[in-house]
């Protein structure tokens, strides 16, 4: 059992007031709040440890490098990767996907196919569109069923020897659907395709294990995982990352530079050109430690309980429709009430101190699929409580009354 009030106490921002009311933060899908340990680690780095990594011989440079590499090992363990050099530090999920997409640009030819799905975040759509445009490959999109899950029959029909890559999200940031990625990976790899998983919404909520999952690439952002902004992870199988061309040229990523020929550094540095967000990477470790201490399976269990409670309670609001009712769901509830515009609802509950997200959530194809301008979205984290859900629902009811 998790002690939620003890967890809440670790997050300074959760005791703040918004518009004169206690903050209720339900926009965790966009970014989570940070525990004191992460905030301290980031400022402590600048106060006591700051130096550039992998460069100098002096004491501080060594210390910064050790700290930086410690996070890599921590993440390797966190996602059960085989090697630490399979962990590449990036700016975030978007950056990670772009690295892979830009690598594929050089590897693909006309006639090759990439498969994505209708529920992807724009950052798992646009890089592939660009990749296809430049390589001549074709993009195929797995359609959604009405309950917000993937049409797996359509997916299987797409698969052929032309399929080179499948890139889908682990969990939909708008619908909350947990996609059957084990099945997707198995079936795609059976036809010789590689699989990339966008784990932005998963890494803080359900346990992930790279070795048993077998994904070729997996990525996520630190900031959605109680960590700092501007840091993310690209996991890639050693074999593949070795074959991949570098993404950006610069310092750190080289072995030898001359005007005749430059050779590239080994993994992971090949993909980490330039001075990285060292403070962010160092603080990222504290975020992972925070999660590991609580235990991801405990977190998943608690958030599921919250999701069930919140779903039951919001459905008591007359005229409310939930988008995304797949059997296997994470703590995300997207909804509309009658013909009310989600912005109107969001504006009013904001005045009552409640942060929910409204709009298309960077998933315009989903909005088109359901023919709606947007939704209001509640997304949960481990520090949320049933009391907060009650407060939120009361506020939504109030908004509905004012707007109808």
């Amino acid at each position, binding site marked *: 059992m998790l002690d939620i009030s003890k967890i809440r106490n670790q997050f300074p921002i959760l005791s703040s007031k918004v*518009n004169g009311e206690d903050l209720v933060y339900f926009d965790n899908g966009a970014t989570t709040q940070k525990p004191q340990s992460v905030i301290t680690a980031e400022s402590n780095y600048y106060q006591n440890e700051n130096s550039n990594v992998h460069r100098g011989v002096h004491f501080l440079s060594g210390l910064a490098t050790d700290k930086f590499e410690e996070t890599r090992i921590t993440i390797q363990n966190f996602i059960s990767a085989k090697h630490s050099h399979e962990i590449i530090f990036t700016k975030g999920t978007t950056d990670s996907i772009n690295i892979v997409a830009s690598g594929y640009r050089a590897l693909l030819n006309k006639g090759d196919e990439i498969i994505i799905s209708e529920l992807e975040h724009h950052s798992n759509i646009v890089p592939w569109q660009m990749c296809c445009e430049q390589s001549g490959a074709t993009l195929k999109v797995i359609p959604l069923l009405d309950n917000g899950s993937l049409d797996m029959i359509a997916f299987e029909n797409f698969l052929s020897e032309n399929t080179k890559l499948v890139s889908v999200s682990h969990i939909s940031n708008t619908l909350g659907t947990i996609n059957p990625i084990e099945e997707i990976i198995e079936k795609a790899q059976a036809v010789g395709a590689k699989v990339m998983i966008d784990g932005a919404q998963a890494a803080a909520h359900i346990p992930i294990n790279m070795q048993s999952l077998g994904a070729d690439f997996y990525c996520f952002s630190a900031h959605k995982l109680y960590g700092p902004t501007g840091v993310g992870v690209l996991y890639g199988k050693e074999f593949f990352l070795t074959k991949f061309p570098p993404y950006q040229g610069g310092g750190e990523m080289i072995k030898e530079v001359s005007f005749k020929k430059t050779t590239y550094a080994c993994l992971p540095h090949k993909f980490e050109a330039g001075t990285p967000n060292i403070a962010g990477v160092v603080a990222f470790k504290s975020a992972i430690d925070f999660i590991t201490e609580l235990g991801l399976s405990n977190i998943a269990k608690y958030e599921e309980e919250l999701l069930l409670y919140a779903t039951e309670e919001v459905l008591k609001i007359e005229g409310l429709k939930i988008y995304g009712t797949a059997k296997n769901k994470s703590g995300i509830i997207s909804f509309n009430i009658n013909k*009310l*515009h989600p*912005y*109107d609802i969001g*504006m*009013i509950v*904001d*005045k009552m101190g409640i942060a929910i997200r409204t*709009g298309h959530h960077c998933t315009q194809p989903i909005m088109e699929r359901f023919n709606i*301008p947007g939704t209001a979205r509640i997304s949960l984290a481990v520090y949320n409580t049933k009391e907060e859900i009650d407060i939120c629902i009361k506020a939504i009811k109030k908004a509905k009354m*004012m*707007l109808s």
Partner: protein
Amino acid sequence: MNTIQNIQAEIVEDFEMFEDWMQKYEYLIELGKELALIEKQYKTEDNLIKGCQSRVWLHAEKQDGKIIYTADSDAIMTKGIIAILIRVLSEQKLEDIIHADLSFIDTIGLKEQLSVTRANGLVSMIKKMKLYALAYQN
């Protein structure tokens, strides 16, 4: 006389009566419901205002040297906000619209009531209204 200045003063007076945000919002919602709606044929891409998170269409027509605005939005609060702007600027002379000093917006704290994205939308709306007046002048 219903000059821009006079109407602004009236609105400021209206808002002074409200005790909290809820009354302001309720007032905006009421105004939104009463907004003079744009005719369907003018709900075009050209008349859509960029910079608003909800969709806003604005149309302007010239009659006897004055401009008449009509608008619509899919969000009711946005409609309320544009209704206020229309109350101030519609049926005014071109010159007056172009040079209008809309300081009442700060006085009634409308911007603080809105999130940043909405405040940007508000700026876009005012800009578009003035641009229409300029276009008709030339």
